[in-house]
């Protein structure tokens, strides 16, 4: 539906749009995303996406990288926010805790993006994961 309507563009601003779009795509070519183009091409080809233009794969790569970076940033915020709660109970070593991406933080971050990741409780992400409830009980 959107696709059909989006093509009904008034002729006035079309020229400006075109130049802006070309500029944007050209700027993408200068930017090297972390996700390699070949990887994106491979998965796009798998999903039936056909386009010889490398600028578009670059666009997809950048979009994906942005998405992942956003999720990771959110997870980082979660990670930074979490130790503050437990800080009182733990030793001082926990204060200088390294920032580690965990499933807990990731699932929280992803929930905002509409991805529902259930962290299985029986998975031992860390060697101390199983010991936590026991130590708390004590």
């Amino acid at each position, binding site marked *: 539906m959107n696709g059909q309507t989006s093509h009904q563009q008034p002729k006035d601003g079309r020229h400006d749009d075109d130049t802006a*779009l070309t500029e944007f795509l050209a700027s993408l070519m200068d930017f090297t995303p972390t996700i390699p183009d070949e990887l994106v091409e491979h998965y796009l080809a798998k999903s039936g996406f056909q*386009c010889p233009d490398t600028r578009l794969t670059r666009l*997809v790569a*950048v979009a994906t990288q942005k998405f992942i970076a956003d999720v990771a940033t959110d997870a980082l915020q979660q990670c930074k926010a979490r130790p503050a709660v437990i800080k009182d109970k733990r030793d001082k070593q926990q204060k200088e805790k390294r920032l*580690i991406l965990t499933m807990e933080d990731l699932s929280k971050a992803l929930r905002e993006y509409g*991805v529902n990741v259930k962290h299985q409780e029986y998975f031992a992400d860390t060697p101390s994961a199983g010991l936590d409830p026991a130590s708390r009980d004590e």
Partner: protein
Amino acid sequence: MSDGGEAEGTRDKQNGSNLRSGAGDYSRAISRVAMAQICEGVGFEGFNESALDSLVDIAIRYVCELGKTSRFYANSAGRTGCNVFDIVQGLEDLGRPQGFTGASEVHTDCVVSSGAIREIKEYVDMADEVPFAQPVPQFPVIRERRMIPSFLQMGETPAFKHVPQWLPAFPDAHTYVRTPIWNERLSDPRTDKIELARQHRKAERSLLNLQQRLVCNGSSVAATSAEPCNGGNGSEVNNNGSLSLEKPLETEEIGVPGVSIPPKLYSQAQTEKQVSLLETFAPAIEAMKDGLDSGSDGEKTTPEKRDSVFLELKGGKKVFGEPLDLRIRKAVGRTASWFGREGEKDDKKRRVEFILRQSFENQQELPQL
């Protein structure tokens, strides 16, 4: 940490086997590195395996979803190839749950001013470039397929009218033409038989040669004479027990009952009931050595030598008298006796082998005696 990662990894692999195949593992490994790099860029110092795996899964899904949505929009616009507008539509669709600036004015005229694109623009301006750690080759590598050349490429014209030229050419005629199979014998049974006999003779000759050599090596006396088959000498040596290949006493006791003396011999040596072993096969050895034609010459020479032996042994044993007697008589009526003997040659050879075998066995028993 690692436990969770491994467990989850296997689960992902099982799920992914339906979705992805072939280059799946490779592309997954690449995306793992890429995701780890992004996390590092964001500020993480480490990661759990399971979390990274989930992130990789999500990234892959994102790309696939974006491609699928873009293709959908392209298809609904009547195109097979995608363009920027399809991708922007797809981005807007994917970003819808979270919402983006300008989401309320979806039907914007300018694609560039779309919220999704604007955000990407900002990200490109803001984020620092972290290129992928290693150069990635184009994958999956599609091997160049070797096609069967068509009639046109082969420069042939199809054998039948209904076969068009662009079809792959027929294989060579010899690969499919039916040919009758004959149960053909490559070799003639007669020549086979002759060959078999020849081989048999050869084997026997080599056996006899071995026998001769053993006899010659055993006797220091025979070293001087070129004639190796001095029956008397050989038996004398054996009597001394140096070689003990066939000890006359042993042959008397054991070998003789097995040996049936040929009738001719028997008649000639009626008084002698016991025949020494060497006497039995000496003619055979000579026959093998000299052949039929030269056999008479060999016979001429041998009795002279044996005379001395005969004299030497006469007092000793009865056994040796007989064969030497026979020799002398044979020298007299040599042609008759020779041809008579020829027919018995095979039997004698067989006996020689048998006695040899027995004497070897007895050799082991000798020390006990």
